[in-house]
Every structure is written in structure tokens, then in C-alpha cells.
């Protein structure tokens, strides 16, 4: 991946001036960290839509990927101090095709209300991906034009990729072997 932390740094500097004083780097008011040479922005669900809009104006004009993650039972996650860990995360991978750089947005969503504003008004291509995240994790996208199941059958109960959704098993029937 050819992330270019230098160009992101410039933006961080320009955004930093009216920000509260702590040692967390910020981009449009949200904490930025660099993981494995990849730029990651952590945000909450209230700021999420505005952040995607601002990043879109910065050039991150393609939403390449959007998926949910369930962190139930995972205590190894490292987050910036300003971010409160929640059970679900919405992960959006953005691409800037002009400058050939990537950026990832991670949104914390609570177990009680895993709802967030849709970004299909900014990135129409996120439509199918949001429907998939809804199927798999039960994340709800407010204002989505077509919030119907996409991969699962219409009458499916539950959200399979949640960690507390048990895998169905069919017991294996062994036949008795004659002569033993």
C-alpha cells in the first residue's frame, strides 16, 4: 500500500489549529493513527457523516469498501484515548484516485443502538455494502434508499456474522459396522 503520511500530515496541521490540546493527531476533528503504514481515522457515529463529506471534499472520492466488525470478546483492540470502545465497528475504506492514497474510517457503534447515517448520498456505491452490513451485523443505516436483505433470504432470523450467532451444525450419523 502506498499510503502517503506526509500529505495527510499537511491536512492534519491545517485542521489542528482550533483543536483541543492533547497528543492525539486529528483530521477534521477525528483522531488519526497510522497502523501498518495505513492511515486510520477513528470517529463516533455523530461525526461520521460529516467526516465522510469532508474527506470527500479532500479528494477521497471513492468508497471502495464498507463492512462491519463485531469486537465481542476481543480485548486486544488498541484505540486512541479519545475514542470509547463499543461492540460494533463500521469500517469504511476510502480511496483517492487522484493522489493514489487510501484512508480508513472506523466508527464505533454501540450494541444497544447500532444505527448510523447512510453515506449513500455521498457515495452511491456504498448502497450494496450497507445492505450487506445490515444483513450480517444488524447495523442500521438511517436514510438508506433500499434497506432490504441483499445476501440473506428475506425471512432470515438473526445476523450471522455477529460473534454470538452460533454456527449451525448437522450431527453426523455414524452407522454401526457389522462384525465388530
Amino acid at each position, binding site marked *: *500500500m*502506498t499510503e502517503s503520511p506526509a500529505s495527510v500530515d499537511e491536512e492534519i496541521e491545517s485542521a489542528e489549529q482550533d483543536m483541543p490540546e492533547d497528543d492525539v493527531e486529528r483530521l477534521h476533528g477525528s483522531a488519526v493513527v497510522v*497502523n*501498518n503504514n*495505513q492511515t*486510520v481515522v477513528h470517529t463516533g457515529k455523530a461525526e461520521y457523516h460529516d467526516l465522510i463529506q469532508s474527506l470527500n471534499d479532500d479528494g477521497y*472520492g*471513492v*468508497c*471502495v*469498501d464498507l*463492512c462491519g*466488525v*463485531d*469486537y465481542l470478546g*476481543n480485548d*486486544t*483492540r*488498541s484505540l486512541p484515548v479519545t475514542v470509547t470502545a463499543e461492540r460494533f465497528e463500521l*469500517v469504511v*475504506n476510502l480511496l483517492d*484516485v487522484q493522489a*493514489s492514497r*487510501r484512508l*480508513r474510517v472506523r466508527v464505533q457503534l454501540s450494541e444497544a443502538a447500532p444505527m448510523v447515517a447512510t453515506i449513500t448520498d455521498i*457515495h*452511491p*456505491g*456504498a*448502497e*450494496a*455494502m450497507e445492505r*450487506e452490513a445490515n444483513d*450480517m451485523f444488524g447495523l442500521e443505516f438511517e436514510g438508506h434508499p433500499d434497506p432490504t*436483505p*441483499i*445476501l*440473506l*433470504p428475506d425471512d432470515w432470523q438473526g445476523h*450471522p*456474522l455477529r460473534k454470538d450467532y452460533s*454456527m449451525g451444525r448437522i450431527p453426523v450419523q455414524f452407522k454401526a459396522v457389522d462384525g465388530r
Partner: protein
Amino acid sequence: MSEAEAEERASVVDPDDERMIINMGPQHPSTHGVLRVTMELQGETVLRSKPVIGYLHTGMEKTAEDLTYLQGPTNVTRMDYAAPLFTELTFSLAVEALLEIEMPDRATWIRMLMCELNRMSSHLLFLATNGMDLGAVGMMIYGWREREEVLRFFEKVTGLRMNHNYIRPGGVAADLPDGWQEDVQNILKVLPERLEQFDVLMTGQPIWRERTQGIGVITTEEALAMGATGPILRSTGYAWDLRRAMPYLAYDQVDFDIVVGTYGDTFDRYAIRLNEIRESMRIVEQCLELIPDGPYRAEDRKVTPPPRARIDESMEALIHHFKIFTEGFKVPPGEVYTAVESPRGELGCYLVSDGGPKPQRMHIRAPSFVNLQTLPHMMHGGLLADAIAVISSIDPIMGEVDR
């Protein structure tokens, strides 16, 4: 709705309204598997359409959470069954990024060689099915024949024609077999002539052109907004190719051109794939010359198994072997997104590790899944007969769409 209501509604229908809604698929020979498209028609014109997917959903992302990192490629390779090596590659790159291990040069070049051959076989499959969909039935036989040449080489190297499980975290499963250069050269020798024949059969034919030119047009802005990548984006004239824009493996050391179209129509998408076979052949030729000697997988005994002969003489080798194949190796906690340019576009893998031997979450960003969203847009206002041409030109692989 009660019966009375239904009757009332039926009575207000405009008798001159000839719109109707039909389903195409999921069992239709030209929908490339189990794709259903619901279309609203006015006579022969398609007004609105909606791809209905999920018929092949098998929960592979859930399965991945129950497999070790070494077993992972056996799972992901079944997603895009026409280009299985690319999914293995993006998964392996993600695991290696979290492990922070160095790849030997030979492993990198073997991966590149195999992936480019796979791109050729995948595009040949496209030419076969695209030809068949549009009535050039002979093309189906020719495309399949050429693809078989490549698959025969894959069988020799990996043991299987498809679903190879060849590219694994830490390198590749085995070194290239003796005499592989001749096999690759044979493929490179027969293919150019056959591609010329395809040009004669299809590219220059007035019937072919009339069937494809100006059909299913999409612009650069629309493609980018929809997240479409690969030949669909390049057909609009936008030269975006991850091999060039964000080089991975050793693509910055080989010489190749990005093929772009002009009009963003079905013909451009066909021509791009045909010519990308030629570009892939150029890369394969350079791989033949430049491939270095050395180990074909990382010499890290915590990640790759020891050579079979070492197990008989070394206790540590036996322990490493046993640990890798029972418990699996542990990957440091973290998350990473890697992307490669598959024949269909950006193929990404988002991997979250909790420090154990199995992923916490493994998500594949499937190009076909995203590209399929452009379908209603391309078909809008076109003829029903052209719908087939447009679906075919997206080249969706349903195993990857539904996962």
C-alpha cells in the same frame, strides 16, 4: 391486500400502459450462475432493473473465522473461481502485513507469474462466455480451449486446475516444477496467434460491433461514484490500475501498459480484456527472464512448515511442523486492508486479528459485488436484448458476489 382492494386497484390500471415487470434468471444460461435481474419493461425497452443476488451465499466470511490462517486460502480461493489465485494473494498479503514478515524475492515473482497467467485464463473465460452470450457460439469452444492451456500448467504446478490453495501466508506451496519455462513458453507461443484469430472472428466483425458498440455506456464519474473498478472503470478512459497506481509484489519492476477504452461501452470492455491478455503475456515474458533463484517461501519456521526431510532428523522441525498444522501460527493483534488488481477490479481483504491463530474477522472486498451495482445504470433505456450483452460485459462471478 384484500380481494376488494385488489379488484379496485386492477380497475384503475391504464389499459394503454404496457409496462411490465419480468424476472430474468436466476436460472438463465447467460446470467453467469445464479443472478436474477428484475426488469421493468416498456415494450422492448428496459426502464428500471435491479439485480437480485444471494442465491450462492455460503457464509464464507463466517467460515473464515473458524479456520486457521494456513487453512484460510482453501476457503477464499473458492470465491472467485475464475481467478482463484488473486483471492489467495490478497488474503496472504493481509496476513503477512500483520505478521510483518519479509517475502523472499522468488516467492514474490512466482506469485506474480502465476497471477498474470491466471489473469489470462480468466479473461479467456470472459471471451468465451461473452462470445456465447452474444451469439458467437464458436467462441465458447475457442476461449475454453485456450484457457485449458493455462489450466494445464496450473495443474502441473499446484496439483489442481482451480481452487489451488497455492499462494499461502509465508510464500507459495511449492516451487515451480522442472521444465516450467518450456511450458510457459509454449503457452506464450500459441496464444498470440489465437488472439489474432479472435480479432478476426469478433473485433472487426460488423455484426459484433453493432451488437456491442454504444451499448451499456457508463461515464468515469458514474463509475467512480458507484465504486466500480477494473475493466469497467478503465473502459471509460480512466487509467486506474492498482498494479501501476499502488504497486504490490514486483509490478514496479516490470514493463506493461494499462489498456483503456474511450466510450465506456460494452465493446470497450471486451477490447480491454482482450488486450489485457497481451499485456499479461508481456509481464509473463519478463518474469521468465527476471525470476530470481532462492527460497520459495519465508524461512520463518513459526509460519511456514520445515522441509519434509528435516522432520526426520530435527526435533524442533517436528515440533514446528506439528504446531503449524494443528494449532496454527498466531498473528499479532491488529487490522489491515490489502488490495490487489484482480481481472475484475480491486480485490481487497480486510483482516482483523485478536492475537490468536484464527482471524477475528475476514472480509473480502469483492469487485464483482460492487461492479454489479452499475448494472441498472448501464441497462437503463436500452433494449432487452442488449441486457444480456451488458450483464456479460460486467463479467460477474457469482461465487465472489455472494461469497
